[in-house]
């Protein structure tokens, strides 16, 4: 899968394409097509946010009036607040874990040669296209056999495993663009392997590591298929929302949704700023 490798490069590179003069009609045609696709992408999100301000309990159009009541309700919802806390705990731990395992894995894939490397690569990258349900149930059976009680910690292990592929592909793509001469020079100048890693390699792949970390955090925060099978009594935020949805739809869910949209927007802006290569950095 070259998918994640190519996307980060695609965001950054910008090439100009020369064109022939176009007719007015084709221009209109393009505008309508692109506008329709953007509407398909954003009308549902707008609807989600808009309904969170609805005075009525039902989610029917037209809205009856505007209110902030649903947000006030959220502030007093202890289960929800606990779920948010759980999600922060799970996402933080699994992101740290997946970086601690994923960065060395990417280094090993790029810089080392060892027997079984092909199999190792396949295994590590598998979850990127593998339905989460397979990771979820296979780990559920393992934990059951070993006699682990399901908890937020088993969820963390599951997330770290499922997200490993994301970190490895992003960091690996950056490592491939990093000339080996840097590390060789560092070693020639007498630096130890650890010194080279922390003072030469890591600063050069920093933006990829931060980007991969942010992405894993978001994905873990939002994860359902693995969490569904591995969680015990404690709920993460998506699992809490899922269980409320099955009880009935209220604008309260939309209010949570609107807050998540706002939070995601902040993260996106943050990641675009952080991922942007500084001039001079490779």
């Amino acid at each position: 899968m070259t998918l994640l490798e190519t996307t980060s490069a695609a965001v950054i590179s910008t090439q100009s394409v020369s064109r022939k003069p176009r007719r007015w009609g084709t221009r209109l045609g393009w505008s309508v097509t692109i506008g329709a696709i953007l509407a398909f992408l954003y009308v549902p999100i707008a609807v989600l946010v808009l309904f969170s301000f609805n005075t009525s309990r039902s989610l029917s159009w037209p809205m009856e009036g505007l209110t902030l009541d649903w947000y006030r309700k959220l502030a007093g919802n202890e289960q929800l607040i606990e779920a948010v806390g759980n999600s922060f705990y799970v996402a933080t731990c699994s992101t740290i874990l997946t970086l601690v395992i994923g960065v060395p894995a990417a280094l090993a894939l790029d810089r080392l040669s060892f027997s079984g490397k092909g199999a190792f690569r396949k295994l590590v990258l598998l979850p990127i296209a593998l339905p989460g349900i397979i990771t979820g149930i296979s780990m559920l059976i393992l934990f059951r056999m070993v006699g682990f009680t399901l908890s937020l910690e088993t969820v963390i292990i599951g997330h770290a495993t499922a997200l490993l592929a994301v970190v490895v592909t992003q960091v690996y793509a950056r490592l491939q663009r990093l000339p080996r001469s840097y590390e060789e020079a560092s070693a020639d100048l007498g630096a130890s392997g650890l010194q080279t890693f922390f003072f030469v390699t890591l600063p050069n792949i920093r933006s990829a590591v931060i980007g991969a970390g942010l992405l894993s955090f978001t994905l873990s925060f939002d994860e359902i298929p693995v969490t569904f099978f591995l969680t015990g009594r404690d709920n993460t935020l998506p699992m809490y929302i899922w269980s409320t949805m099955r009880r009935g739809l209220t604008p309260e869910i939309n209010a949570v949704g609107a807050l998540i949209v706002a939070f995601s927007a902040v993260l996106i802006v943050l990641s675009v700023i952080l991922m942007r290569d500084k001039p001079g950095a490779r």
Partner: protein
Amino acid sequence: MTAGVVKRARLRQFLVLSPPLLWTVLFMFVPYAILVVYSFWRAQFPLAVPDFQFGNYIEIFTDPQYLNVLLRTAKIAGLVSLLSLLLAFPYAYFLVFKVRKPGLRLTLYMAVVAPLWVSYLLRAYTWKTILGTEGLLNSFLMSTGILSEPSSVFLYNQTAMIITLTYVFIPFMVMPIYAALEKIPPSLIEASGDLGEGALATLAKITIPLAMPGIVAGFTMTFCLSFGDFISPILVGGPDGLMIANVIAAQFGAALNWPLGSALALVMLVIVLGIITASDRFERLGQARLS
């Protein structure tokens, strides 16, 4: 190189490699292996007993309900990929070849990728509120006079699922197609025009063939992701909308037949791996032909 240096290099290699290796063996290889073993077990109260029998697989391949669900899942995943392609290709094409300003191009690209950061569950949920009897679509159609009373035909069927899954997974189609189109040298397209080919002929003979690796990667990704989904079917799918992942999840829940669930999961795994391998082959073939 002295023996000491070699030894230290070995040690370093070992230290770099062992955490990820240990983790992948313990939490990926072992669970997958257990899944295989478990699929030959027999369900028995309270859960399952060790055995080596093919009953679970025989049940899957002889009971038509499982084959039907598999075929339905493949059909829905295929239609989702196709619809995503039909929307994503023009969009990516426009971005690469028609947008002149790099800033606008980045913004439009991010506009497609950004929804990935918004909760998957909520993106599926919002379609439930749009397509429902009291939802936006019904109200809109009634206000324009197309419908006289709210209709329930929009929600709880396969069409609703295809729309929802397309909405959720379309970024995975746009990203690789965009990357593939961006690699095409504009001079090739100009040359085709200079040689008298029309815009459509250029598209069919130059652009699409060269974008094929991206199209195949996107198709593979959206297909596999839709194939394994079990959230959207519950939210917007109807009685005829259950997919294979729902059947698997049920075996680990109410139906309580873990061995059968494991066997079903392995069938799913083989199908998904088969598709990934085929798409990998194709990509390599394409690269060999181009170079």
